[in-house]
């Protein structure tokens, strides 16, 4: 389906299907804010539980667009050009594949999938359909753009090490050690549903997910983009250090990963959901880069403006990020990929690569062994 109207010399609007929006509505909101894209319908499988339909319906009502409990019917009736998938993580791949098979370009919330087999299925479907896929990411935050520009300018010479700290200062329910004798283990899905109110439900779904799986894609995408090479081997330590839900469901909330990359590059990742008390803002997110001519230290949050006032709610962030065009730039990148046929900033293949690093790190954390990353044979 051509995205440009050659008669009028203007690109035609792209019609977007919101294919489940139970997790992060900021993704379809970002897409809707782009002048080239119109949201036309929300859809999801009828078999989904009520809480899913409630969230989908609320979003549809907000935009005064229909909610259809049948994605294939929605695609047939509304003829969208693209789909935005922000479902439970274990459904990302299935929904995205169905959209791709139907010829839709796809924006997928992170992670690409919770299993490598599903990631491979996604990559194959996107390749066969010849559609574009964008895995949502933070690589176009102003600090990341500045980091990349600085590295590419040669200011620090040839890059040889890159380290990322990615701590979210969010709570995740009761603290570790709070379960009383006789209490049942915390149900993961129920906990995530409760967490939707404060936006800390990145792991929403039936299958429990540790912090490496939930958020690891963001810092690993930074490293991928800045280093430009693949990670081949990892050594990880993982722990449940903060939250009872993670203890009860045996998934990490704190992890450290040593990364060995192509070309002799090395690095590390420190990641955790460290609790709301442990940082005054959303968390400490920093990148340290070392090159043959020097080092570079980047605070992902900057630029910021500090706002403090009497009666300020304790949980309100006192530093507000400004000049952040990540959302617009990501959607613009996606639209340009559709228009021109080039690849997106973070496509399915790279998303699969990142999932493989996460999978290897989780295995390393459990076994205490150095683990080779299971990349696709063709990569």
């Amino acid at each position, binding site marked *: 389906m051509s995205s440009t109207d050659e008669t009028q010399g203007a690109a035609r609007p792209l019609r977007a299907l919101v294919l489940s929006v139970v997790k992060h509505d900021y993704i379809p909101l970002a897409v809707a804010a782009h002048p080239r894209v119109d949201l036309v319908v929300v859809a999801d499988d009828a078999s989904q539980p009520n809480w899913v339909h409630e969230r989908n319906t609320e979003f549809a009502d907000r935009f005064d667009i229909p909610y259809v409990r049948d994605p294939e019917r929605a695609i047939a009736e509304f003829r969208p050009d693209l789909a935005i998938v922000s479902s439970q993580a274990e459904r990302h791949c299935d929904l995205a594949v169905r959209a791709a098979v139907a010829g839709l370009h796809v924006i997928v919330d992170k992670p690409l999938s919770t299993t490598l087999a599903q990631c491979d299925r996604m990559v194959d479907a996107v390749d066969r359909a010849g559609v574009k896929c964008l895995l949502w990411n933070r690589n176009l935050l102003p600090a990341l753009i500045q980091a990349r520009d600085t590295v590419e300018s040669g200011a620090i010479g040839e890059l040889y090490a890159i380290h990322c700290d990615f701590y979210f200062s969010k709570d995740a329910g009761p603290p570790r050690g709070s379960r009383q004798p006789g209490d049942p283990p915390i149900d993961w899905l129920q906990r995530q549903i409760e967490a939707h109110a404060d936006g800390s439900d990145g792991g929403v779904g039936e299958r429990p997910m540790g912090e490496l799986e939930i958020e690891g894609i963001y810092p690993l995408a930074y490293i991928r983009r800045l280093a430009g090479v693949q990670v081949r081997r990892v050594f990880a330590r993982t722990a449940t250090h903060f939250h009872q839900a993670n203890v009860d469901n045996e998934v990490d909330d704190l992890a450290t990963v*040593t990364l060995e990359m192509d070309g002799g590059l090395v690095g*590390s990742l420190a990641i955790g959901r460290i609790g709301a008390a442990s940082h005054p803002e959303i968390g400490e997110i920093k990148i340290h880069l070392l090159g043959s001519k020097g080092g570079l230290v980047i605070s992902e949050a900057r630029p910021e403006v500090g706002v403090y006032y009497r009666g300020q709610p304790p949980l309100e962030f006192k530093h507000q990020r400004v000049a952040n065009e990540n959302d617009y730039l990501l959607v613009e990148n996606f639209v340009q990929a559709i228009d021109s046929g080039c690849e997106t900033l973070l496509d399915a293949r790279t998303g699969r690569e990142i999932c493989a690093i996460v999978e290897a790190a989780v295995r390393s954390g459990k076994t205490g062994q150095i683990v080779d990353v299971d990349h696709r044979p063709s990569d």
Partner: protein
Amino acid sequence: MIRLAIVLSDSEPADAYRSAVRRLRDVALADRIAESDAVVTDDHEEAWNAACADRHVLLESAEDTAGPRLAELAEACRKASRCFMPAHPWRFRPSVRAVRDALDAGKLGEPGLLRIHRWDRSAGAEDVSAQLIPEIDLANWFFAGPPREIYALARDDYLQVHLGFADGGMALIDHAALPAGTGYYSLSLIGSTGAAYADDHRDLQLLLAGGAPSALGKVEGILPVIGQLDEFASAIRAARPPSVTLEATVAALDVLDAVSSAARERRVSRSSTSAGGSYELDG
């Protein structure tokens, strides 16, 4: 009054100790060991002589003294009921003390993750791993014991270390050389109920003198020396062991040996005991 003789090979640290003495009550300078109650020295022969002469000993560069010799010194002081303290000035840096105080006060809960970036002016031709004693010691200190797993990667003038501690604690440390100029140091400790960030990135001041802005690093001056000397003097007065003992230096040296092996072989080095120490490379 504790009379302190300063016998150091380098004038800069000697001057720092003289200035530190002036900042402390009931500590005075002694011109010679014979007139002193205590000696600070970086020479193990001088240290040995001082210990045999019933002097308290604060040993600078203790990590450069062979393990058996260190043990002999410590034993000589113990027999004479004298204080023996290996110098670990990094523990007394104001920024490190603030982190440690928060941990000791229970504000951080159980330590979970220690992250240190240490980028020095220049590592030069020296073995970069040997310079990592302070960071290894800090990790052992914060986690109340040596690690159980060690992995490391090394290249010219660069070393990164990954440590796993009992109860799930972990540390990542990287040490790199920078071009001549101001170095960089960042230490963060994430605990189960709080976190502390001692980070040069936050502490840099800006210099705008044409061209791109420059950053002025933080200055801690002789405060680490004052803190260390104060602890030494307090231990002497109270006739108690100092907060830094021979065991800490030896433990850090053991871990460093294992780090070097792990980096050389690109294998994990693992402790044969649940408490850490006695490392062997994975097969």
